[in-house]
């Protein structure tokens, strides 16, 4: 018997993904800056969805507080830029800062399970938001602009930001992809399928989860950096808003929790919805919340997971999946 990871489709598709990245890189050379800005937003969503999925889909860690790292990335950029660091260097530093802060937070956050972790992370986000609000240099509660970016001509600025977004997305998706394919990946999927069983087989669950948590800290920090680079103005009320978590949950649940491709599908879907209903507003959010809840209850594997299951399709091969049969014990 032969165990194969790559199929023809998946080889073609992985090649296609690389080609897509190269094509995307040419977008700013061809299109207007508003298109570029919109695509930047899409990349931010893809990045966020992938990171939230890394936590929940592979680590079983449902966080309602990833906005903490988005905020650290965004405010970190402003902070470093104010110190006189070149804006795009400040963005890299802020990303590193978010990842660095994720490490100490992980030391205790990872001890918590389920609801305690979810709300514990939320409270951490609130605390960081309160700290920012107390700092007059960061605009306190009223917000602050990244004025240092004004030194660039708008079209160039938009292009640089887009390339940064593309770079971040490629780097973080590739990191996740190779992480899941590595020997570590097998243990991560074991944890996802049954944490206690994985532990009893000697998988160092805590260390694996920490890896995912810090990766997600970096990734969400990068997304925060991109938010401030894309919009130029941030305030604690929106950048630390729990709404980010709502978006992430929506994208991942609808796309497919615990699948590599699913969150990307979810991000494209959310992006399409956002550009169609530009007014936003309560109805749109009612739909978002209801859809997320419905998917959680009725279609827990999401769109992609369901397609994959029905058709045996696998575009980006990260491993082998086991259908959960946990209903048994609780239903009994």
């Amino acid at each position: 018997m032969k165990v194969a990871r790559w199929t023809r489709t998946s080889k073609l598709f992985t090649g296609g993904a690389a080609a897509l990245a190269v094509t995307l890189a040419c977008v700013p050379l061809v299109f207007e800056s508003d298109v570029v800005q919109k695509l930047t937003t899409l990349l931010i969503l893809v990045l966020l969805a992938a990171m939230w999925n890394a936590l929940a889909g592979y680590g079983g860690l449902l966080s309602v507080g990833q906005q903490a790292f988005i905020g650290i990335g965004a405010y970190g950029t402003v902070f470093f830029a104010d110190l006189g660091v070149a804006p795009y260097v400040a963005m890299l530093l802020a990303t590193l800062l978010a990842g660095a802060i994720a490490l100490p937070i992980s030391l205790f956050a990872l001890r918590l399970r389920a609801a305690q972790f979810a709300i514990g992370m939320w409270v951490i986000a609130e605390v960081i938001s309160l700290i920012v609000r107390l700092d007059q240099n960061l605009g306190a509660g009223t917000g602050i602009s990244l004025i240092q970016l004004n030194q660039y001509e708008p079209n160039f600025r938009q292009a640089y930001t887009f390339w940064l977004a593309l770079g971040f997305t490629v780097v973080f998706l590739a990191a996740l992809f190779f992480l899941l394919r590595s020997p570590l990946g097998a243990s991560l999927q074991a944890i996802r399928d049954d944490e206690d069983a994985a532990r009893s087989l000697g998988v160092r669950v805590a260390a694996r989860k920490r890896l995912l948590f810090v990766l997600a800290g970096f990734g969400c920090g990068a997304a925060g950096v991109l938010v401030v680079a894309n919009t130029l103005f941030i305030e604690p009320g929106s950048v630390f808003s729990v709404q980010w978590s709502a978006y992430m949950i929506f994208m991942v649940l609808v796309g497919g929790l615990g699948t590599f491709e699913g969150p990307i599908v979810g991000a494209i879907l959310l992006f399409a919805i956002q550009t169609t209903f530009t007014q936003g507003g309560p109805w749109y959010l009612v739909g978002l919340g209801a859809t997320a809840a419905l998917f959680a209850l009725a279609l827990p594997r999401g769109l992609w997971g369901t397609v994959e299951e029905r058709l045996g399709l696998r575009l980006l091969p990260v491993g082998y999946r086991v259908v959960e049969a946990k209903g048994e014990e609780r239903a009994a």
Partner: protein
Amino acid sequence: MTLLNAALQGIFLGAFYAVLACGLSIMFGVMRIINLAHGDIAVFGAYVMFVIVEHTGVSAFIAFAAALPVMVVLGYVLQLTVLERSLKSGILTPLLATFGLSIVIQNLLQLAFSPDVRSLGGSAGAVTTGSWQVTSGLSVSALGLVVLVVAVLVFGALQLFLSRTRMGWMMRATAEDADAAELVGIDSRGVYAWATAFAVAIAALGGLFLAIRSVFDPVSGPTQLIFAFEAVVIGGMGSLWGTLVGGIALGVAQTLGAQIHPQFAVMAGHLLFLVVLIARYGGGRDFLPRARRLLLARAGR
């Protein structure tokens, strides 16, 4: 004296948090789930009372009594439609489903009532304004006292219910072993539905106090949820009286924090919550001994 007064006001505030947390604690105790829409349900209850007061001009307390049956039915139906399904599929699903529900409730309230800030303080009668000056620096507000007394009564009644009634035993039995409870003839679905109905009804009481004490708007829910959850965790998850103590500890932390700086009130509560989490589940047990070993090894050299 100001510190003593702050602590006293903290006890009153904490009693309010305890009422908010009570339903959350019941649902966790019986079903091991945390309802992330709990705060929004409390705010929804406040809006139901608001509508009743607007249309009939009755006092907020009478509006609460009228809203109570609505909330009980709402809780019962919520369990049978949404939560029961989510219980069957792992520990993350109830969180995801109730988070979605929370967003739905907030935005439906937004649509129905606009984002304006409301209050029921004006329709609660003299209780909102009355207070006794004990000494120059120490005052006891009538409302604070009412909330405290009601909180103690609610927890006391719940304790009696759980320890003295057959329905209470059924709830405890199901909480401890739902499978075995079914085998002795207990309808666990029904018990769960009643637990949620109680939780939602008590959340409405929290909504009443929120509306009388201060103001609320469609997105007030998440903050109430966080405070309620903090109270539950500080008091020890799964312990009923612990929730009352936890709520009061949170309230006192907030009012004492406000003594340092008005903006520090909420932060002090969060910090207390995080410290309790760390002490109970977090690094402490593992990292402190390791740090001590390291230090000792250094000292030994």
